[in-house]
């Protein structure tokens, strides 16, 4: 699937729930409206955690791609 070019990439490999989301929240705080964050994770739970977090924070969840043992999760920051 076609994914946008990320403005920032966060690698959380080797960390597990809830650390990838804690790191995501920190990164998003420093980013601007409409910017895209790519989160790389080895925690398979990112597939359910990221959409849930986006729903609660109203950032746009763009999806998660699996590549072997690794996951790539995409978020578009909404600050309006």
């Amino acid at each position: 699937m076609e994914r946008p070019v990320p403005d920032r990439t966060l690698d959380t490999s080797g960390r597990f729930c809830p650390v990838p989301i804690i790191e995501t929240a920190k990164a998003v705080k420093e980013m601007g409206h409409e910017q895209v964050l790519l989160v790389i994770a080895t925690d398979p739970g990112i597939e359910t955690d990221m959409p849930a977090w986006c729903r609660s924070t109203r950032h746009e969840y763009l999806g998660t791609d699996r590549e072997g043992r690794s996951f790539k999760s995409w978020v578009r920051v909404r600050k309006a």
Partner: protein
Amino acid sequence: MTKRKPRALGLISGGLDSMLSLKIVRDVLGCEVRAVNFYTGFCITETQRRSGRRREDGTVKPNEALQAGAELEAEVELIDISDEGYLDVIANPKFGYGANANPCIDCRIDMFKRAKALLEEWGGDFVFTGEVLGQRPKSQRRHTMALIEKNAGLEGRLLRPLSAQLLPPTIAEKEGLIDRSKLYKISGRSRKEQMALAKELGIANFPQPAGGCCYLTDEAFAKKFFDVLDHREERKISKEEIVLLATGRHFRLSDGVKLVVGRTEGENFQLDMHAAGRYRLHARDVNGPVALVEGEPTWEEMVIASRIVARYGQGRDLPQVAIEWRNGKGEGEEVLQVEPFRDDAAFASLRI
């Protein structure tokens, strides 16, 4: 003059009671809510994911606080409290442990102290939780709840919306900032009233009660936890040790020597990540687990550890298995040719 909007800081576990309390405080009482969830480092979800375990249907356990946030459309801030201060509370609880390694009273006091600091920094009026009077045997009895509140310095500023009418009014209720008549008088272990309330308040998705996400209440973990504390002079434990305690099979070889054997691919991976400063051993020529040894083993202990590691690998039925030892710097040390233990009973007494 219009009445100002009260500000309330909620401690959200993600269970139904905390979801109801958030909904009541935000939508019924009309407060501005900031929801937080404390990450202690003793989370069952995290441990299961780390070890690579999946549920029967192939999915992994969701983070309940995040699910609750999605259902209620409220951001739940995840706050990492798994620092040295918290671990010190867990290793030296003033009010003692529950049935296992769970110092619930001290843990709650610590969390409420942190909540108080967040509340004051934010300029909030009170803290709220989903606690229900009489629901838990240790930490949710009337006098214990009062004791926790007092020790955390939150007297009069801790609202439990589900049981509020059974408890003394908080400052916010007394000052008319929030309406006490809109609060509830639920008590005990039944969930009947909460289920009805969920329906009434429009909460459709919530987790089944599972006794929380904390493995300090787990009997097997408690044994390993106390084994570590009992074998050192100072009651102190590190974050790395906690991760290791939740990983693999543990064997006490002597006062200063311990063996940890991975059970899954995920656990083997974790043990590899923590090999620095410990001996790492594995079967050289056949597939098998990764294991770590802490301390300085004697020759006899090295043989026993090697035979255990051989027992859990694919060479378990071979007459001899070569077990390779590497030191804490990852350098090759020695290869021991050992006979795998044939009978688990032979080393069962070493299992922690």
